[in-house]
């Protein structure tokens, strides 16, 4: 399950869609909008994507995670548009028989996403806004 969405991410729904009786672990990672960055107060973050390529890259990360880790399934959902602090910008859900592979592949997926998926954030402050490019 790989999606770009504009509404809040419903992690419970993703989890329920993925988990099966043979699974012994569900690992969930959420990236969340933080109210401060680079010494400034962040009021919101706007996420923009090259959508067709971003989806393709999310699928590629999922395929690599399934090949490299002993997991059964993985979902990655990234939100686009304007988000406020505490809202999740990305959710990764992994189901597997055992916990180690679930934790490890979750970490792999978010680290790889931050390097190769064409999504950009613009930080909005009280007195302005700045594109953040790279630095992940």
């Amino acid at each position: 399950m790989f999606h770009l969405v504009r509404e809040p991410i419903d992690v419970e729904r993703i989890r329920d869609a993925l988990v099966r009786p043979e699974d012994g672990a569900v690992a969930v990672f959420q990236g969340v909008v933080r109210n401060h960055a680079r010494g400034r107060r962040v009021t919101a973050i706007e996420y923009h994507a090259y959508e067709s390529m971003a989806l393709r890259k999310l699928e590629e990360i999922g395929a690599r995670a399934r090949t490299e880790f002993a997991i059964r399934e993985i979902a990655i959902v990234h939100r686009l548009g304007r988000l406020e602090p505490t809202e999740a910008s990305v959710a990764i859900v992994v189901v597997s028989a055992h916990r180690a592979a679930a934790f490890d592949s979750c970490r792999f997926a978010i680290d790889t996403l931050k390097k190769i998926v064409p999504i950009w954030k613009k930080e909005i402050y009280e007195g302005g806004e700045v594109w953040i490019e790279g630095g992940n």
Partner: protein
Amino acid sequence: MTIRVLFFASLADATGMREAEVDPGLHPDVASVFTEFARKFPKLEAHRASLLYALNSEFVAPDAAVSDGDEVAFLPPVSGG
């Protein structure tokens, strides 16, 4: 020959547009398409060193050849997640 060119994030701000259709001329590669735009929009030049090129939704090297109907995208370093 016509190609579609996409600009993202600060590159869209630098050009004032998100996409364009252009005829890139004879034997173009993705870097030469960028050079053409940088001539029109000098602010783009500062981005060249950190730029990533995509051709039809896949990362490519600067010398990747462009064909009719292709979609070329200029990508600043990504910052999703």
